[in-house]
């Protein structure tokens, strides 16, 4: 009995370790020395102050997107379209950065607001397709992701093409005044961290202490009951999508205004999909999200350095995080495996009510 409680207690570590083992196995298969690889990744993530700041800078849009997804997940929505919402935010911010004339604070304020609006609108389209058209948000979102990326490609190869000629790489760098001011010479903008912290607090309060958060929860668990209890499913669905989209748009703005300095072809770089993994690994708990976002960011930044140094493909970072989420999802609860309380008990509830429908 004592051993059993022990196993149950340390169980959450098992899938994490298993994911590490899986990755090590993969490295051995490719003839790489795992110790060397993890050292290289550590160096890549935290080797210098600049690299550490890069990890922080990369965390911020990831965190913003994850926070948005907490809202949509609570409402029972799979907002896969977040990737496109980030892109549209980046496009809107770029538009202001390229073409508006104003002082720096005004520019940045307009960039941020328009980016949030653009993300929210793009998310709203997916929301309306779901509520009005019955199109599942996964498919609506995917199509909108592709359309957003195609739109970006159109802009950077067409109207926003740099004057020196056709390239698919990006627009001209933005003026200094339209970018977020960065710490030292890094890609980290302190202002973006402040924004992310404010967003964290807001999402936390919204989910814990407001009627709106409760409505989203009800909607996510049982849309029909929620509707009958007075929750407007259409309104809350679209609102949750749009709030998430706004945060994603903000993430997009941070990408173009501090991580890069122009609009590029692959502006989001899969941050939206990554954010879905972050929230899943956090098991939808708000306070775990920043930690996991930071961890993911470190792994992925480390993996980029790894590729530069050892020629091993940088997708190793994605594999490590992905396998970790998969294993936690599958084996995270000792209950599901029958080590803790048996899940069979729940399956055979007393059926004395004699209702079956």
């Amino acid at each position, binding site marked *: 009995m004592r051993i059993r409680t022990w196993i149950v207690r340390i169980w959450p570590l098992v899938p994490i370790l298993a994911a590490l083992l899986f990755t090590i196995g993969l490295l051995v298969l490719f003839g790489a020395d795992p110790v060397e690889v993890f050292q290289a990744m550590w160096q890549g993530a935290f080797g210098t102050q600049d690299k550490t700041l890069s990890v922080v800078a990369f965390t911020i849009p990831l965190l913003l997107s994850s926070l948005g997804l907490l809202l949509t997940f609570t409402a029972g929505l799979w907002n896969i379209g977040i990737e496109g919402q980030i892109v549209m935010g980046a496009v809107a911010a770029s538009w202001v950065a390229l073409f508006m004339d104003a002082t720096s604070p005004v520019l940045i304020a307009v960039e941020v607001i328009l980016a949030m609006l653009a993300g929210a609108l793009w998310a709203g389209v997916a929301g309306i397709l779901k509520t009005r058209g019955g199109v599942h948000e996964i498919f609506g979102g995917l199509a909108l992701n592709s359309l957003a990326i195609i739109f970006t490609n159109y802009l950077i190869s067409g109207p926003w093409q740099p004057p020196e000629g056709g390239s698919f790489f990006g627009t001209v760098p933005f003026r200094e005044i339209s970018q977020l001011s960065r710490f030292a010479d890094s890609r980290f903008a302190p202002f973006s961290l402040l924004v992310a912290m404010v967003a964290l607090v807001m999402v936390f309060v919204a989910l814990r202490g407001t009627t709106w958060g409760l409505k989203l929860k009800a909607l996510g668990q049982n849309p029909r009951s929620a509707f009958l209890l007075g929750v407007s499913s259409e309104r809350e669905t679209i609102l949750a999508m749009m709030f998430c989209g706004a945060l994603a748009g903000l993430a997009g703005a941070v990408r173009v205004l501090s991580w890069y300095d122009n609009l590029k072809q692959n502006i989001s770089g899969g941050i939206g999909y990554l954010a879905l993994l972050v929230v899943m690994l956090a098991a939808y708990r708000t306070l775990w999200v920043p930690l996991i976002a930071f961890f993911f960011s470190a792994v992925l930044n480390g993996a980029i350095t790894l590729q530069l140094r050892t020629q091993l493909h940088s997708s190793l970072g994605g594999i490590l995080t992905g396998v970790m989420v998969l294993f936690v999802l599958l084996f995270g609860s000792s209950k599901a495996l029958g080590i803790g309380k048996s899940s069979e008990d729940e399956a055979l509830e007393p059926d*004395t009510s004699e209702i079956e*429908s």
Partner: protein
Amino acid sequence: MRVEIRDIRKYFGSVKANDGITLTLEEGHIYGVLGENGAGKSTLMKILSGYQPPDSGEILLNGQPHTFDSPLSALKNGVGMLYQDPHDIPPFSIVDNFLLGRDKRLRLNYRAAESELKELSSKYGFALDIQAHVDSLSLGERQQLELVRLLAGGAEVLILDEPTTGISAEQKDVLFNSMRKLAREEGKILLLVSHKLEEVQELCDHAFILRRGKYVGEMEIPCPNEKLVEMMFGQVPPRSERPTFELGDPMLELRDVNISTYRLSVKNLNLSVRAGEIFGLAGLEGSGQRLLIQACAGLVRPESGQIILDGQDITSWSYHKTRAVNVAYVAAGRLEEGLVASLSLTEHVVLAQRETDFFVDWAASGQDAQSRIEHYQIVGRPDSTAEELSGGNQQRLLFGLLWNKLKLILLEHPTRGLDVRSTNYIWNLLYQRRQDGTAIIFISPDLDEIIERSDRIAVFSGGVMSRIVDAKTTSVKEIGHMIGGQL
């Protein structure tokens, strides 16, 4: 065939659903299995039909012990069960449904199946349209289809779980006649699971009575009802007194309302329900009564006509707008339509409030929940989740969430699956509501409930609403015939 059930036990956690039950069944008899809800009838029958294994005890067929590991193995040994909600597959065609699990051959032989189906259904007096799909059938027809399937599968023992709930008087007669034929002419054993004494008296020749998971006795039928009731309940429960009430002015009026969905259209609904009146709607499921309720609740939009609530035209208002003018709708499935399984009682209280603040005051809401728990006698705490409550307590919670001073309450199956005590409690709550001038419209498949609780009654059949009858002067028989279409 002779069936012996010996010392069957089945526990669910601390609940003793079956606690050592022993019965013997002889060929050619129709047995009634009587008991209150939760007496263990359904569990015992599921064990006998192979749907659940017992914890201990054995089943003997012709003296030989048998263990059934699935409903199919039970049927192969001659035991088949017809569930209240038939185990068929609604999107399938009737023939597909009949064929599923019939044999091991790879290719489906539709022609043979169709002729077998036709032959069996005409033999037992069922009129089944072979070309139809299961989801277009009435509950009674789905039962007939299922019976035919079980008989074709070789059932010698047939268990029928509350088969008369939700079917018409004609369908009931057809069913009972075929049951008699099966027992008398073919020597089959039939088990009628029911809590309706009249049916047991009408059909059966022997009755077993269960109470709280235990066998309490058996009786030759016919016998005095009081005897059976005493065995079922331990003591005869007082019949709930219905307080008389002076009705007020018309609260709800329907004028030439037409509703149509692509499945069913309901034409020319004209109805006036007065403040404080309880109006019962009977009919087979899917006959249009639910559409009426949902149109009043703003859940379906009428094609034409007017719905007037207390002088205000609320035709085509949305559900939420209708709700705001004090119309409440309580659906049949509690955890599907009404409560959110994983939310606590307090959270439900906050959600259901008439006016919600942006920020939640959890302390005050918890106290609010506590006071409702006390007032509605809910067994639970403010932080219990809805799924932790029993069915009766879930229904109490649903009523606890209703606003005060409602104008109209629309109910679907308000006491489905509840025991006598909870049923009486729920109805007393509703009677109290009449003091506020609330009009109540409800649907129930239980004709006794309809007649006992309503002031006036209307019956739906195939989308047509009958004349309105007075509950005091009508009978189950009259309503049953109206359900069958004799409006």
